[in-house]
């Protein structure tokens, strides 16, 4: 294998992560489960700790300077997110717990208000449960029809198929930007264009894309976009719902409570303006500050550089995985990110994961919260997924360990 000119030095990047430093409590792990959650750089952990230690106060509540400062930091995080995804204004950024909550918010607030019996909602066959179950339930609650946009055998989405599904009853197309199983990068801008031409809205699940390829809500022209902090080098407990301002103004609140009203009388409630209208109760303040630091971390490396590097690594992995006899890799060869679902001979994916774990390589095995897709693929799979701190040596170790796995299970 000719050495490739990788544009980043992952070893240097790993130095920014405590998880990859020698530590008595820890094994030296090759972490290839980034689609489940990424590790956190020092900068994120320290930003959160620093907030708890020195700036902690509740936000948006009158009274004292430390509270005003906390509110400033919280709103600065919102502006950082807006800039990161190129929203028109920070009021289009709602903080949630994660992708799952963001999509549930849309299904309840927008969905229960605007979906009528007989309306149609299109979801793709490759969706994660987070972008599937809310629509299944909404369809059931409102008497709407869920239509499934099937994938090709290669695992891609054909725009022709979407064209055939769209009609004047279509209200929404819900699609992942990157499949958490197949790694396919979907043509979200084209999908939004087709949806809009049919008079429908488009929601993009960017959980797997936001930390890996540039995401620009204006370029995509999506109506809603959701992602989680913890898959983008940030903490758990924080996620984002982006929605176009005009939609947020029409949508009723989701959760209700403190901080999202102007006035409450027994006979009348006046909701606050977005984004406050959608953030009932004490928000994830420390977590928003952690997300801010995570986005700074990402931009300190550069999103183009990350995309290019991970693409290089993906190409390398695709090539090397082919060497393993009996390995069946799902998903397309091109237009794909560094998420590799595979099976190996007849070895059950959990057994593969266990053998790899015994060699200090962390991957996942199972249905990856995408049961319909998993059924389509014929059952559970093993999945290795990359982030910016992985490198070619990790792929090499993975390939070696897969050879070893075959041996353990008696394959020659």
């Amino acid at each position, binding site marked *: 294998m000719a050495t490739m000119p990788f544009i980043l030095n992952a070893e240097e990047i790993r130095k920014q992560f405590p998880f990859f430093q020698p530590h008595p409590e820890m094994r030296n792990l090759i972490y290839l489960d980034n689609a489940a959650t990424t590790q956190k750089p020092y900068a994120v952990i320290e930003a959160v700790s620093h907030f708890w230690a020195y700036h902690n106060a509740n936000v948006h*509540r009158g009274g004292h*300077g430390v509270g005003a400062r906390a509110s400033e930091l919280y709103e600065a995080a919102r502006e950082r997110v807006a800039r990161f995804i190129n929203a028109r204004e920070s009021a289009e950024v709602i903080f949630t717990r994660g992708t799952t909550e963001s999509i549930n918010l849309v299904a309840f607030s927008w969905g229960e208000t605007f979906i009528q019996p007989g309306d149609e909602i299109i979801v793709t066959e490759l969706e994660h449960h987070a972008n599937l179950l809310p629509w299944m339930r909404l369809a059931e609650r409102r008497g709407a029809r869920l239509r499934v946009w099937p994938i090709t055998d290669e695992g891609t989405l054909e725009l022709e198929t979407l064209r055939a599904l769209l009609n004047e009853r279509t209200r929404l197309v819900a699609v992942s930007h990157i499949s958490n199983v197949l790694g396919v990068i979907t043509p979200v801008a084209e999908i939004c264009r087709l949806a809009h031409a049919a008079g429908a809205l488009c929601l993009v699940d960017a959980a797997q894309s936001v930390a890996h390829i540039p995401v620009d809500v204006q370029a995509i022209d999506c109506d809603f976009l959701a992602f989680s902090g913890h898959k983008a080098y940030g903490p758990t407990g924080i996620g984002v719902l982006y929605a176009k301002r005009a939609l947020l103004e029409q949508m009723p609140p989701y959760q209700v409570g403190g901080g999202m*009203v*102007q006035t409450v009388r027994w006979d009348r409630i006046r909701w606050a303006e977005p984004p406050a209208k959608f953030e009932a109760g004490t928000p994830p303040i420390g977590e928003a500050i952690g997300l801010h630091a995570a986005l700074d971390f990402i931009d300190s490396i550069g999103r183009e550089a990350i995309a290019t590097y991970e693409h290089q690594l993906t190409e390398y992995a695709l090539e090397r995985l082919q060497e393993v006899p009996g390995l069946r890799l799902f998903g397309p060869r091109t237009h794909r990110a560094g998420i590799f679902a595979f099976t190996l001979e007849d070895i059950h994916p959990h057994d593969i994961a266990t053998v790899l774990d015994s060699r200090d390589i962390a991957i996942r095995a199972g249905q990856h919260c995408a049961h319909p897709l998993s059924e389509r693929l014929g059952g559970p799979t093993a999945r290795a997924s990359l982030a910016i701190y992985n490198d070619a040596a990790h792929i090499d170790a993975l390939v070696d360990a897969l050879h070893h796995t075959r041996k353990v299970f008696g394959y020659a």
Partner: protein
Amino acid sequence: MLEELYQEIILDHYRHPRGRGELEPPKITQEGFNPSCGDEVILDVRVENGRVSDVRFRGRGCSISQASASMLVEAVKGKSLEEARQLIQQVLALVKGEIEADFEQHGELAALAGVRNFPVRVKCATLAWHTLEEALKQAEEVAAK
């Protein structure tokens, strides 16, 4: 610094507000509300021949928000729409510390500059003025019809 915030002029306007009340029609009514602290200022504005011929305010809130509204009433009455808009910009700049406060030049309004060291209170001082801004927009829309 606290003395700059609660200057005698402010407290005087708070205790003895000028122009508290309502106007008879024709008038433009504009509500201003600060959800984070509950301060409220409602302005009644009458525009005649391109001038703010009369203003009154109602509302409730802290000394700063109510004194600011009271000072607004005195400062804006009789001004042309253009002058009123300039005045708003001037007050916002004063309050945010973008220009120096000068009693010679800005009159009593200079006292509002005391909030610049109290970030929590800036919104109190600006509430009435943002409300006026909205009221003037309404006035233009009415005039344009």
